[in-house]
């Protein structure tokens, strides 16, 4: 009898089967990639079904499946409701996605937009924030893969983490954005069905009334609607989610990949589909005290409860769901970050005359390089997933106002945008260390917003939106 929910051999078998399938699927989809635009943006022609699914699946990450239960375990019902409010990021990005398609019909990345709208200084600050965030997220995903495999099947952390990185790098390398989006569709279905099944099984076997009674008697703070730190977390999480989505090239590259009339409704649908998932995954953690489960690491509370209630079948479902959640975000992040490096740094700054073939080759090298760097940074298990996630909040929330105002307001200039992002980030980090993780994004967003407001009041300039349509200008010169 093993002390783990799954035998190590079963875990390895699932990983190998999934790995072979995803890499082969990625290779098959990659055959259609003829140009760098095909590889990076799936030909800018993704339909509604794939678009909605990829928006939803990419936002379901290790954080949704591991951290939402962890936060529910720590903050009670506000933990899961607060987490579900991160759906606002996708929903509010819907009109922005439409605007992005209109303003940048030939754009590639969010960095493209910042450079053209605000100039080089703001671009530099933005790229630093984007890269820090991307690595924070990549590391949290890589670590989550290792933690998952180890806790469920006893497979060594380093082997599990390496395997999941190799698989995701493999199919993204072969198939580019087309593979990322098509696999996201299947992964979205697996995640939703798996999560629903676990929650239903838990309700059927333990009972909602029983969970509520137990918590009322033994842990009333988890049902408290006025839990101060939890309410603060709710607002912090909203701004964190907005910052993540508004600035990250993961979401911009998707908006640019979708068909023109699809971007708005895809993000709106994706957000609505995502909204209940943290509540469903978070709720699973509320059964832990009643079941006498107190895991050594709080971020494993969800999988531990599911495996305890459903036994081996539950462990397999959890394994597959979290693996899909990790893969759906890891591939997106690898593709989007490599696009950012290829387009913004290599193409625009170093090799403006690079051929399409060179760009494609460099993009692939970037995916591989990012995978290797993530692997190196994941080797030491440096922080819990929650800590890593919330630290990034200080960075990304500072970009909310510069991005939003940059898309809709002509008066904000590059100097103020750069200052807002830099000072917002520093203030958020100060809040993180001085007060707690639950204020980092709030402070960052507030300071950045204040600077942007001053910038708009003091500015007498009017930005010309046509400057964003870069490719047309190049073509006109030719």
């Amino acid at each position, binding site marked *: 009898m093993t002390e783990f929910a799954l035998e190590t051999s079963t875990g390895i078998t699932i990983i190998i089967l999934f790995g072979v399938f995803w890499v082969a699927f990625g290779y098959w989809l990659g055959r259609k990639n003829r140009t760098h635009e095909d590889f990076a943006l799936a030909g800018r022609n993704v*339909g*509604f*079904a794939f678009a909605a699914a990829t928006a939803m699946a990419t936002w379901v990450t290790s954080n949704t499946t591991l951290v939402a239960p962890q936060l529910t375990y720590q903050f009670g019902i506000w933990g899961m409701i607060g987490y579900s409010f991160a759906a606002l990021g996708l929903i509010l990005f819907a009109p922005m996605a439409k605007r992005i398609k209109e303003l940048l019909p030939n754009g590639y990345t969010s960095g493209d937009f910042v450079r053209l709208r605000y100039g080089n200084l703001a671009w530099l600050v933005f790229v630093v924030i984007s890269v820090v965030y991307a690595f924070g997220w990549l590391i949290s995903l890589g670590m989550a893969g290792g933690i998952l495999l180890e806790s469920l099947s006893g497979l060594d952390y380093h082997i599990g983490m390496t395997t999941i990185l190799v698989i995701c790098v493999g199919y993204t390398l072969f198939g580019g954005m087309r593979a990322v989006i098509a696999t996201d569709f299947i992964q979205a*279905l697996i995640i*939703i069905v798996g999560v629903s099944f676990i929650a239903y099984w838990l309700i059927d076997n333990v009972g909602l*009334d029983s969970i*509520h009674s137990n918590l009322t008697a033994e842990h009333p703070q988890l049902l408290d609607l006025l839990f101060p730190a939890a309410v603060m977390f709710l607002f912090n999480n909203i701004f964190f989610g907005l910052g993540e989505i508004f600035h990250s090239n993961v979401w911009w590259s998707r908006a640019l990949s979708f068909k023109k009339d699809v971007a708005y409704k895809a993000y709106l649908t994706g957000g609505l589909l995502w909204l209940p998932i943290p509540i469903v995954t978070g*709720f699973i953690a509320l059964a832990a005290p009643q079941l006498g489960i107190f895991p050594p690491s709080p971020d494993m509370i969800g999988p531990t409860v599911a495996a305890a209630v459903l036994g081996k079948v539950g462990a397999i479902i959890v394994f597959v769901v979290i693996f899909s959640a990790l893969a759906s975000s890891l591939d997106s992040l690898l593709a989007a970050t490599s696009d950012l490096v290829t387009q913004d740094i290599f193409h625009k700054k170093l090799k403006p005359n690079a051929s399409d073939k060179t760009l494609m080759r460099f993009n692939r090298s970037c995916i591989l390089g990012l995978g290797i760097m993530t692997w190196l940074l994941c080797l030491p298990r440096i922080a819990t997933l929650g800590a890593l996630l919330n630290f990034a909040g200080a960075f990304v929330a500072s970009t909310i106002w510069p991005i939003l105002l940059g898309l809709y307001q002509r008066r904000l200039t590059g100097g103020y945008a750069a200052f807002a992002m830099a000072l917002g980030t520093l203030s958020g980090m100060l809040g993180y260390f001085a007060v707690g993780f639950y204020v980092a994004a709030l402070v960052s967003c507030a300071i950045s917003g204040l600077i942007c407001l001053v910038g708009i009041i003091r500015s007498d300039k009017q930005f010309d939106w046509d400057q964003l349509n870069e490719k047309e200008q190049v073509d006109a010169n030719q």
Partner: protein
Amino acid sequence: MLINELAFEWLIFLALLMTGVAPILLLGLFIKDFISKTIW
């Protein structure tokens, strides 16, 4: 102030219902795109 049992149950049931509808919706959209050849 604690959330009462009825509100707690409704919160979880509603979330589960919305999650359950999602795969049906996604598959429906996929079939529609497939038929009209607008997947990509």
